[in-house]
């Protein structure tokens, strides 16, 4: 049985189902209880599980992140709610120096089974400190898994998998998609990490797109369809681990690829995936692999400027046409 629910509801269900299953899980963060977060994602959880398990904290991100690491090392399975992805910079020591490295530094003796839920996504007119997509920062650190759900279906299935994982997992929800609905089964399901989804099959070009950019890639495919160009859309769903096999198989078939991600383009996810394609499918390529990430500027407030910084279906389609026509040339 399938029904349509919002991404917000999907997250809420995933947490509630897992908390009913496992009493060692608790959720901790700012305004997570009665307030249910600014996005109302967690509404109703404190009524069911009580303040002992849905824990409101002071505005002390490094502090509650550190508490979660220690709790995870000693038999609990914390879910940390970080209100905005931009606040990752506040918790970097606890996340990257402590959580990510504890299993390794202890020779495999200590585990840190925690989930850090946060968000990404610009064009909400929230300016440079509430709009960033910082998943590349954490994907860079060995020991952290990184999930990027692209719909309500993925949000629920990936979050449940994350909660059951024995490692620190950072899951980024697109804050502009909280009210977007998608079919989600009534029955329990999990989405394994490291398994990409082929969201649309095609012959001429592969669009590898993450999170918010999956919608952009699907809209691009519609535009290209009118020009007789058949685009395949791949959603990796997790970038650590990355399902290289599905991506490479697609590019070997289409011979062309554009990688689209809402993080900054420079030194980002798009570069990493494009590089792996170039290394492993080089002799199958008919055009350079393109990267399309967010513009390398802080996210501006003015709508007139902010909209320029994120890839759009029109911009992706234009690059795809150039790629397919053989009109992409090196700058030199």
């Amino acid at each position: 049985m399938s029904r349509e629910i919002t991404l917000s509801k999907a997250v809420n269900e995933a947490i509630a189902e897992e908390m009913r299953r496992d009493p060692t899980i608790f959720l901790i963060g700012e305004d997570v209880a009665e307030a249910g977060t600014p996005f109302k994602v967690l509404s109703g959880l404190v009524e069911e599980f009580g303040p002992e398990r849905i824990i409101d904290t002071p505005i002390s991100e490094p502090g509650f992140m550190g508490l979660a690491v220690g709790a995870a090392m000693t038999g609990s399975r914390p879910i940390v709610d970080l209100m905005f992805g931009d606040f990752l910079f506040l918790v970097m020591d606890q996340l990257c120096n402590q959580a990510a490295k504890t299993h390794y530094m202890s020779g495999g003796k200590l585990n840190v089974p925690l989930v850090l839920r946060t968000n990404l996504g610009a064009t909400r007119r929230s300016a440079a400190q509430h709009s960033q997509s910082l998943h590349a920062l954490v994907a860079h650190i060995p020991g952290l898994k990184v999930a990027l759900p692209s719909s309500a279906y993925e949000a629920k299935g990936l979050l449940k998998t994350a909660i059951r994982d024995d490692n620190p997992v950072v899951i980024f929800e697109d804050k502009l998609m909280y009210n977007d609905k998608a079919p989600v089964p009534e029955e329990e399901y999990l989405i394994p990490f490291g398994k990409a989804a082929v969201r649309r099959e095609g012959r001429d070009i592969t669009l590898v797109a993450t999170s918010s950019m999956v919608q952009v890639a699907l809209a691009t495919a519609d535009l290209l369809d009118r020009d007789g160009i058949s685009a395949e859309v791949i959603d990796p769903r997790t970038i650590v681990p990355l399902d290289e096999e599905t991506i490479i198989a697609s590019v070997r078939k289409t011979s062309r690829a554009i990688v689209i991600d809402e993080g900054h383009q420079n030194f980002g996810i798009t570069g990493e995936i494009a590089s792996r394609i170039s290394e492993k499918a080089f002799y199958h390529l008919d055009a350079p692999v393109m990267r399309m990430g967010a513009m390398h500027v802080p996210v501006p407030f003015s709508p007139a400027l902010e909209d320029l910084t994120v890839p759009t279906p029109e911009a992706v389609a234009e690059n795809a046409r150039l790629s397919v026509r053989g009109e992409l040339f090196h700058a030199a």
Partner: protein
Amino acid sequence: MAPKKKTNTEDYLRMYRQMVRIRAFEDNANQLYLSAKMPGLTHMYSGQEAVAVGICEALEDSDKITSTHRGHGHCVAKGAEFRQMFCELLGKAEGYCRGKGGSMHIADQSHGNLGANAIVGGSMGIATGAALSAKRLGTKDVAVCFFGDGATAQGLWYEVMNMAALWKLPVIYACENNGYSEYTKTDEIAAGSLTARAEAFGIEAHSVDGQDVLAVNELAQKLVARARKGEGPFFIELQTYRYHGHHVGDINRDYYRSRDEEAEWKTARDPITNFGKWLEAEGIMTADELVAINDEIKADAKAAVEYALDAAYPPSGEVDMHVFAGVDHALSYV
């Protein structure tokens, strides 16, 4: 020395032995560094033995501690063995962390040691989280967070003390005040008093002579019992002294502290010498018996060093193991 009845002979002897074991461990670790047999560097705990031993002797095996870059003393005091410790310091496969952590990350989860930490103050959240876990899961475990006076300058401490006090967590913040924040006198960088900082959160704060193992242990026993009953958190400032520099390579330190000061602490306030004298004065041990203990422990340490020097390094295939739990080799996973 704090007055004490002569009814706890076994406890006294264990405390004495544990302090001597820490000193012997550190003397050997220092020699390994000076003779270039140990990779990297290390931070000596010598001089602070009464702190780790006085507190850890008040803990159960399942109680948790978090340790610091100057962490060998805590590790020994919480029950670790010389062999696995020296193997870890030398990066050998039989080390507590299979050689992946080394001196600054040594952990021994089988005795509740959640690990040393190379970020000053980095484990304050971890210890507080262990206490949150204990409270939520009803384990009755207590967590002790060891840190130095230098770490009191980290903002994280104030965030987690606030939450520990709000939620009455069973955590004891044990500040080993050895007077120096790395190469700087702490008096020059700390405003006000340290106990007042904890008291500002409504946390009961104590100050104790960290060179007097009985005084430390007596206080720790009381506070651990109260924390177990839900009366925590607590703060203890332990006045102590580090005999070596910030790390083993910090040899010439006249520019930040005097040799007279060092000599004064070593001769008049050594925790092992003074406790040994007390044991003799109370008729619990003779001078010969103490010498025999010291000799036996020195021989143990020497044998463990020799074992570790000959022990095997981890095979190269382990380099990408233990990155993720449940994943054998990370490179074929990511």
